[in-house]
């Protein structure tokens, strides 16, 4: 049988509690994605609204001033595209 568990039941903390903060970073939510945000740099005004609204906090400002997601965490939820005041983000089907 393939191993599908994180650890043996005896090794889980009491009541499956998480004993150290920051463990959410270990959960790479990027593989949940079916749609991927595509940025149109001609339309983008670098306002950073997408960064503010991203529920995964995975969008950050690059050296060129454009805001781009970290695809290890981006779930493809489309909130950034919905909130963009310039419709500069399109959600497109991701080819894997």
């Amino acid at each position: 049988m393939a191993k599908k568990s994180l650890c043996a039941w005896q090794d889980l903390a009491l009541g499956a509690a998480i004993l150290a903060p920051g463990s959410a970073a270990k959960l790479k939510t990027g593989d949940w994605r079916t749609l991927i945000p595509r940025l149109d740099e001609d339309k983008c005004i670098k306002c950073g609204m997408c960064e503010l609204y991203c529920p995964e906090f995975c969008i950050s400002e690059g050296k060129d001033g454009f805001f781009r997601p970290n695809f290890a965490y981006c779930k493809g939820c489309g909130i950034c595209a919905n909130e963009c005041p310039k419709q500069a983000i399109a959600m497109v089907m991701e080819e894997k």
Partner: protein
Amino acid sequence: MLKKRVGIEVSLAVAEAVKQARAQVVSAYPITPQTHIVEELSTYVANGELDAEFIPVESEHSAMSAAVGAAAAGARVYTATSSQGLALMHEILFIASAQRLPIVMTVANRSLSGPISIWNDHSDIMAERDIGWVQLFVEDGQEATELTIAAFKIAEDHRVLLPVAVNMDGFILTHMIEPVIFPAQATVDKFLPPYKPALKLDPAKPVTMGPVGVPEVYLEAKKQCEQALLDSKAVVAEVLAEAGKTFERKYNLIETNGKKKAKTLFVTMGSLGESVWSAVEGLNEDGEDVGQVRIRLWRPFPVQEFKKACKGAKRLIVIDRAMSPGSVCGPVAQELKTIFYKDKDAPEIVNVIAGLGGRDVPVADFKEMYRLAKKGKLAKTYTLWGVDSNA
């Protein structure tokens, strides 16, 4: 040591026991027939007799939620409920055990609606069999008092760390005035030292309790809780033995009355056991070969201890106080049929569902059940005792 024996309503005796156990948080919502317990506790808190936070919540769902939060913060927590109140707590009951929180709750057993009924049976707790709590049943006021104190010791033991429900029959027990001997406060303090949490919410050392259990974790988390519940049996036995010594009584997981090695045994849980005891005594005096087995620990079910108590019996008359509609018999009988399945010398199990919704079952009725069972005239499935029928 000579202790004071007082005549007291059992609900108030339980409140006194919770006070003696030095509960630190009581969150509760009133519901008949449990109300007197938490009403008395609120008076203790208001008078300064009990140094605790009393949280008068807006529903039982909130009562259990507040209990979970307070226990997570490391407090000794108590609540009590009945019937619809227990049903309203339903989803949080599983969370309390999953988070390994040693909450103690009295369930003043009452039938579930509908039709609306405030009277006694076990349908409320039987709908919550699988919540992962330790579940005890008490039979009289003295036991209710002492096992309420013992329940904290069981729950808080680091080998257990699970919530405990102490079941006591609504009205029949909660509202009865009985003679109760209270232990000295120093005795209780020695028996039950302050609660030391294994894990608690603490800003200095942050932890996350109740996280999402993704498919890679959920199964192992459930296994951890189930194993803790199974392993708790030994601790319950140990604490009951110590409680027996401390309070000068005797408490086992399973108790027996009447003729030793009797061919027929009544099986009871809760206060109807006392009526059965009287019936068995009478039948023994008439020379009948009958005894009684009383289940004190319902979850985890003490399989070996129960089988040992039934050794040599040919027939069990199992008294259930709840229906399991659409199944083959009542919940206690189902349990027993399962544990004896394919055993050589397994006793015949006849099931009588009696006393639903507060219907009175006098001593004479149990004698009648015995006579019918002896003649093989009780149904193979179950008998809904006393139901009025045109058939």
